[in-house]
């Protein structure tokens, strides 16, 4: 049994440092790895990244993260990534991490992702340069995820994103903002690669459970959804 803990949208800054740490002390009794699904900080500053590093660094299990839109807000994503990496947290943006569990290799491919919308109700790369740039960012993110998923030599594949790969887990959010919460291209990448589980955050009013069109389980682990320090998903 592979036990994956996951949490997103913790929005840490110095006023909330230490909130999660008590519950994380016993993490290795419950999980083999912890995935962080982005929006780890509030404004994406280096100071806030240090709070995240103190909160989720030096844990008893491997920690693998992607950044979210908040983590880009101050244009310091490279430094934020470095601070987290120095604390032993693997930050993925088109890369992967392999975690050995009971003789099996669990591969985690991660990317922030982006909006764009879902099948039939999505943005197209047409018209002004601004909308073309928006859609290009979506497509580049999905291509990075697909590339990372395909390249992994592992027994179990997990996709980790901040933006949602499906609309299922957005139920509860206003439908008008779905195009800002995720895109179908991430789901398409996940479905192309025999993925066992997809984890995302970003949608505070969505729902926890969903499926991709190809039948892959999707879980929205935004903190206001799971209402605990982390959720646990077990894969046989």
């Amino acid at each position: 049994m592979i036990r994956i803990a996951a949490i997103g949208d913790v929005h840490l800054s110095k006023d909330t440092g230490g909130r999660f740490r008590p519950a994380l002390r016993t993490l290795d009794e419950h999980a083999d790895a912890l995935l962080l699904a982005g929006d780890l900080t509030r404004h994406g500053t280096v100071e806030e990244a240090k709070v995240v590093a103190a909160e989720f660094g030096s844990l008893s299990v491997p920690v693998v993260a992607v950044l979210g839109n908040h983590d880009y807000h101050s244009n310091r994503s490279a430094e934020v990534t470095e601070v987290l990496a120095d604390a032993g947290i693997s930050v993925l943006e088109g890369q992967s991490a392999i975690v050995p569990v009971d003789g099996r290799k669990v591969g985690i491919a991660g990317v922030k992702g982006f909006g764009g919308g879902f099948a039939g109700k999505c943005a197209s790369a047409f018209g002004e340069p601004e909308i073309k740039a928006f859609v290009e960012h979506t497509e580049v993110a999905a291509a990075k995820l697909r590339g990372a998923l395909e390249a992994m030599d592992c027994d179990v594949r997990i996709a980790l994103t901040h933006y949602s790969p499906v609309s299922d887990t957005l139920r509860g959010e206003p439908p008008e903002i779905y195009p800002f919460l995720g895109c179908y291209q991430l789901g398409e990448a996940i479905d192309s690669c025999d993925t066992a589980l997809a984890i995302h955050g970003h949608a505070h009013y969505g729902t926890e459970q969903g499926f991709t069109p190809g039948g892959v389980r999707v879980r929205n682990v935004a903190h206001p959804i799971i209402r605990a320090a982390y959720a646990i998903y077990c894969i046989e």
Partner: protein
Amino acid sequence: MTGDHSTGAPQYQVAAVRRALAEDERTAEQGIKVTVRGDTILLSGDVECARRRDEIAEVVHEVVPAMRIYNDIKVTEAGEPTGREEFR
């Protein structure tokens, strides 16, 4: 985004408040529900600490100073999970 939005169509009041909550560096919150009923504004959703809940009310008050604020925002629990999901 500056100015008093206490009067005007409720749709524009909601838009002004939601944008202020996201774009004001004191709050940077995109996950707060804003509902207008007459001269009352209802805030709901989840934040990470009580101080942020109060900061949100401060920013909303600056945008719609003449409106009554119901601040029903909750602080999200961060304890150990009580269960786990097993995929079979």
